[in-house]
């Protein structure tokens, strides 16, 4: 399932870009993310706690930066995480695009998300909605994080 989030961050592209490339810092803007640490260049390990209604997911996995193209202001990341108790997990491909926007930089996040295993039995549409909401909050957090 794919979906797109767009928001305007009131800083110039350079500043947003530099911030976005610091994965641990940017990850801390994702609601529910805990302890993200670098494992090697471009690869990070971390955990994400999400509650989808009665279901509490404790996802542990990795984020890999697959492409950084500062000239095109484009980056691609890949996240893989599993919940060992539930037996299932998620795979996500994220495409970040930075474009000049009025009063700041327009950030566009294209996400391709796959729900794996047991979790999928709960209902893909609900989980998609939840992921969408998480990204929206992420965008808001980014704005506040960079507003100062």
């Amino acid at each position, binding site marked *: *399932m794919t979906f797109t989030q767009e928001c305007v961050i009131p800083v110039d592209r350079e500043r947003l870009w530099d911030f976005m490339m610091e994965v641990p810092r940017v990850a801390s803007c994702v609601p529910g993310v805990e302890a993200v640490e670098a494992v090697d260049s471009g690869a990070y390990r971390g955990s994400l706690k999400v509650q989808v209604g009665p279901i509490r997911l404790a996802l542990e996995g990795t984020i890999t930066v697959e492409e950084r193209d500062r000239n095109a202001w484009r980056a691609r990341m890949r996240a893989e995480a599993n919940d*060992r108790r*539930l037996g299932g997990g998620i795979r996500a491909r994220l495409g970040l695009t930075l474009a000049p926007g009025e009063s700041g930089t327009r950030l566009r996040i294209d996400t391709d998300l796959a729900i*794996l*295993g047991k979790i*999928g*039995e709960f*209902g*893909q549409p609900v989980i998609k909605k939840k992921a969408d909401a998480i990204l929206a909050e992420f965008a808001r957090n980014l704005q506040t994080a960079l507003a100062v």
Partner: protein
Amino acid sequence: MAHRIVGQPVGKLEGIGKVSGQARYSGDVTLPGLVWGKALRSPLPHARIVRIDTSRARALPGVLAVLTAQDLPDILVGRRMFDMPMLARDRVRFVGEKVAVVAAVDPDTAEEALALIDVEYEDLSAVFDPVAAIKAGAPVLHENPAAYEGAPAERPHPNVQSVLRFKLGDVEAGFGQADRIFEHTFRTQLDHQGYLEPHAGVVAIDDDGRIQVWASNKMPFRLKELLSHALRRPPEQIRVNLTPIGGDFGGKGSLMDLPLAYHLARVTGRPVKMLMRYAEELMAGNPRHPSVITMRTGVTRDGRIIARRVKALFNSGAYAAFKPAPSVNLGGTAMGAGVYRIPNLLIEAFCVYSNNIPCGHARSPGEPQMVFAGESHMDMIARELGMDPADLRRKNLLRDGDHLANGHHLEHVRASDTLEAALKASHYAEPKPGPWIGRGMAMTHRHIGVGFTNARVRLETSGAVTLSIALPDTGTGAHLVLCQVVAEVLGVTLDEVEIEVANTDDFETDSGVGGSRVTHTGGRAAYHAAEKLKQQIESEASKHGIPAGALAEIARAAAKDGRTLEASHFYDAKAHADVTSFTAQVAEVAIDPATGQVTIRHFTTAHDVGTIINPIGHQGQIEGGLIQGLGFALMEEMKTEDGRISTLSLGDFKLPTIQDIPPLTTVILQDQVGPGPFNAKAIGEGSISAVAPAIANAVADACGVRILDLPITAEKVYFALREKVAR
């Protein structure tokens, strides 16, 4: 010809056990020391298995064994084409493919252990759409399919499992003579058989090494062969014990989890039970093939079909293993010609590999797909020609002496009578009761299946008769039918005939249940065995000067001389008889233009049948198949996204309920020309295939909207109506 018992509406004798909860299905079998097997399934549609760590699962209390492909011999399984590993070996090809299996003391512990197995995957690019799968450069699922045992030779693309072709005359020349040519493309959905008993199996290894199997499998002797092949054990080392089967509809003929249950039994030294959860059935059973079917038909000005070309793509999923036919394709493909005489015909069906759930056989394999396409196509042509759809059919119906696409020669053809009977009973020609109401017809036919069956009848000293047979009870009422045949032949009452369900040790072989064959093959085997016993009884009677009716006396007299009065017969119907059974159906629907909702106001089904041995069972087959057809037409759909099935419970994948059934009229045209006992024909697969096109045609008649892809949902009708208004 009048019969005493054949033709009587008697209730099912298996009934007592079934209504009282005493009937023991495979899943009910329990043995001392029994443990539970559960499989871990791939979450990815196509990936390389980098590493599997089972240590945490092994450490869980109550876990007796954890197996991966590394613990098993490198053997591929299947029914005809052997291309599927028992557990994925270094590569998974669909979401739901088994990668590891656990044995534990109870099912919950086994499930918990599965969550403790860590598998590292590396994604491979996948393909899901059958059209994309056979394009150049598409991801290839199997490097060298030709090397698989049982693989057909023809392979235009590495992702093609098989090609099935039917040809009459010269199709290109035929199109040359056509005044008008019509082409339409249709799609049908992925659909589960919907039996309410998920696959169940128990495997135990005796002290002497014999393998005991209880399984929801409708072909016990074929199962024995396939297990012997999969386990590399001699067939005589395997005994399949028959149990009732909780619904088959084509889906219960494979090995499914049995080889894994065996290996778990081997390593644990305990009997092992494996039951699939319904979610597993929906992600990894062997459902009905989805299809993309293009029909191109050339007709003359006066509406005669002169040529037809049919191209069908069946999305077969990741493995061909579940298809039992030698063609490794779907025989129903021949129905691309419908019930019509088409001088120049070419039908081509491609079963295609993709990273989806592997598909198998479902009630009248390939026919609901083909008949939906063909009979919708007929109505679309009729409307283009400004003809009544009934007239277009009348002009082209099969007649005595015609040949079907598969070369099958026909006599006693009652296509026309069947159509007219359905039209009359449904008041097709009469004015419709109001706006937004429409009527639609569709036709099909279904051959009488062939195969082979062993039967044994014995006269007990009590005077009762025992019929011994190794055909499992899939619910069709076959056992009762066979008892009726024996009682009829021997002149005893039905209560005096007992059925004894044998196992695979008791007989040489049997082709099992399938293809609408059982009344024919089982019935004839029982008939001839009973005839032989009758002769023994008569000679025994005259020898002792006992009246031929005093059965107990005769049996006891024989017993005194140390003889049991017993006769066996092996019946093998190799070739199809030159008859078939036609079906004509008419749906009357009402459309709610505000919502697109389709209501079936009335449904009429007409059948050309042979001697009816049990009217209750016969009607039950018609009604059951028809409502499966209704589900296929209106609601059933296993939705997938990138190979992931999202309808993983019967809460999301919906089957028809008792509140969804329409008022029904059944018309029976009886003939005494069937190859079965007392000239019976087949009925099991006659009522399912024409339902969807009859409804699609009725919807078009009601509101001018043509739905080309199943199921016919309210949403599709609603948006199609809006488009029509916009135009």
